[in-house]
């Protein structure tokens, strides 16, 4: 059966903009374009460091930069908004200011990569699928109860919407009419399982209907559409209108993680079709059409982004190795005596390294 949900797309693959698109200034477009490119270059750097054994298993964001950069731009700098990511939201978190070297540290095996969450209101990367949405629900409900103006934006993938915790979180934000925006990055695959095998529901967005709030689809590779839909959802949430569920239709151009090989479960042809819808290329074409971008801008921007990524990589490479004490020091506010004994033993064994 079909449940109608609205679908929004303004920018076609040739960079032409349809009527009704949100007003975005040249500066707005340049900022979004910058974050998409910065995210892509950072992503490529992390992948290259992973191949060299300098970083651990990593989940690439290639192809999914559009929705994430537009979402970050839809948040005003001073807004009391928490991002609650899954693990493929590096672009959104970088665009919200979370330092790239910190993300590199996270994926490089350092817990300290996650120690600036409060400063940037970005929760740490969340691996157990969909469980993060309940944290977003709790943040949003507490904002409502405390009378804070704000919102929580929780991310989930298409596969994540099959989890029980997805249903529980959706039900919580619906029941409490909480200021939450849940964004499903439907990138068509949960590792190898395609969207069509994930659920009999004709859209993922329609799942919101059962929880009593609005679900919408958006072209996830169109920054104009994503910006408008997310901005509207944030404003609605912050003005007491309750949650919105956004299904951003996009595509993971890369492997699930560096431990995966997509050739096992999909064709080159399919991937090439989606490359034509690349969010960065689409916006670039548009910006060139309207005369706010040219090859020289592009070259300067890429050089600048590469420089910033290299600086972040250098900072990451300079991260001191963790000391053995550190595996004990943040377990509790005060370490219980029996773990203190174990700490003393391990520190002695490892020579206080």
């Amino acid at each position, binding site marked *: 059966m079909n449940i109608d949900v609205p679908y929004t797309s303004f920018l076609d693959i040739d960079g032409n903009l349809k009527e009704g698109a949100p007003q975005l200034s040249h500066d707005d477009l340049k900022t979004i374009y910058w974050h998409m490119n910065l995210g892509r270059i950072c992503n490529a750097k992390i992948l290259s460091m992973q191949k060299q054994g300098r970083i651990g298993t990593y989940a690439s964001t290639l192809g999914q930069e559009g929705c994430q950069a537009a979402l970050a731009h839809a948040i005003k700098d001073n807004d009391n908004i928490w991002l609650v990511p899954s693990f493929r939201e590096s672009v959104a978190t970088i665009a919200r200011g979370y330092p790239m070297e910190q993300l590199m540290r996270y994926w490089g095996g350092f817990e300290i990569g996650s120690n600036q969450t409060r400063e940037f209101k970005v929760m740490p990367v969340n691996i157990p699928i969909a469980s993060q949405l309940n944290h977003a629900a709790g943040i949003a409900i507490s904002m409502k109860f405390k009378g804070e103006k704000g919102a929580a934006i929780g991310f989930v993938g298409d596969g994540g919407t099959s989890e029980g915790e997805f249903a529980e979180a959706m039900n919580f934000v619906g029941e409490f009419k909480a200021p939450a925006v849940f964004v499903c990055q439907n990138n068509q695959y949960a590792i190898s399982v395609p969207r069509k095998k994930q659920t009999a529901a004709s859209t993922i967005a329609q799942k919101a209907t059962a929880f009593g709030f609005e679900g919408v689809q958006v072209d996830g590779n169109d920054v104009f559409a994503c910006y408008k839909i997310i901005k509207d959802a944030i404003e609605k949430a912050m003005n007491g209108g309750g949650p919105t569920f956004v299904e951003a239709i996009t595509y993971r151009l890369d492997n699930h993680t560096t431990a995966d090989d997509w050739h096992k479960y999909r064709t080159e042809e399919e991937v090439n079709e989606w490359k034509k819808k690349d969010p960065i290329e689409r916006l670039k074409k548009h910006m060139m059409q309207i005369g706010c971008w040219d090859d020289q801008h592009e070259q300067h921007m890429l050089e600048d982004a590469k420089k910033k990524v290299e600086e972040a990589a250098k900072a990451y490479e300079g991260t001191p190795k963790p000391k053995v004490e550190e595996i004990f020091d943040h377990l509790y506010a005060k370490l*219980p005596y029996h773990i203190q004994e174990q700490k003393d033993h391990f520190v002695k064994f490892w020579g206080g390294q």
Partner: protein
Amino acid sequence: MTERNMVQALNNAFFIAMERDPTVITYGEDVGVDGGVFRVTDGLQAKFGDQRSFDSPLAEAGIVGSAIGMAVNGLKPVVEMQFSGFIYPAFQQIVSHAARLRNRTRGDITIPLVIRSPYGGGINALEHHSESLEALYVHIPGLKVVIPSSPYDAKGLLIAAIEDPDPVLFLEPKRLYRAVKQEVPDDYYTIPLGQAKVMKEGKDITIIAWGGMVPVAEDAISQVKAECELIDLRTIDPWDKKTIIDSVKKTGKCIIIHEATKTGGFGAEIAATLQEECIFNLDAPVARVTAPDVIVPYFKAEHYYRPNADMLVKKINELLNF
């Protein structure tokens, strides 16, 4: 001073904690209007409003997961899992998030959260209502596990758990909810987590119990001639090793009684620690009186399963004659 049973003492602890700290809230299934199926949260909604004591949807992962989010945003949630047999959907939130967030953010995010749940058997309950699985949670670094056995302790330990900056699983022996009344001060007090209580001093044998087994041990001790030292562990994790070792050094003999099944039960940890730390003080093997390693029988056969005073008396006599 007022005579209170454990439910009333816990309820009183809530009134005091919520009065003292406006960030303390409580919610769960039937917690708000109904005051909880055991009435532990009775009257809180009327007093503190429906944004500090409220009913949640019937969703355990959602309850604990949202409480983690609320803790991130500055609240101190005390959530109820209606019965410990229903915690499992929330297990992911407890293990992967509540217990981990401080460590994985290097102290940037802390989770001052209390998860309360009635546990244990002995009340002819439905299936899935009688388990004693405290050892599961002891195995999770970053979490604390508290089990009171008296109204006085229940109040002081609950307030301490609420004030604790880290997540605490607070298991309430439902067999003892209304079993006895005791003088419980009306005012604020806490009992530090991690401190056992010597309930009765003795020189012959150390008996260690917690929760629903404490009255069983008291009953058994009253039936034997030996002078038993009874210790109520009160906090299972972190446990008060020193009090127990000091006692065993004095008595030379030790029995642990727990309602949980034997293999991998917390008694095994205590026994292992005693042989590590004071083997030359032991005059007999450390003994355990526990449930057998079987599924909790439905209530027509539960009496075979749940340790009782006769079982402990028999074990005390065996050890005395060792």
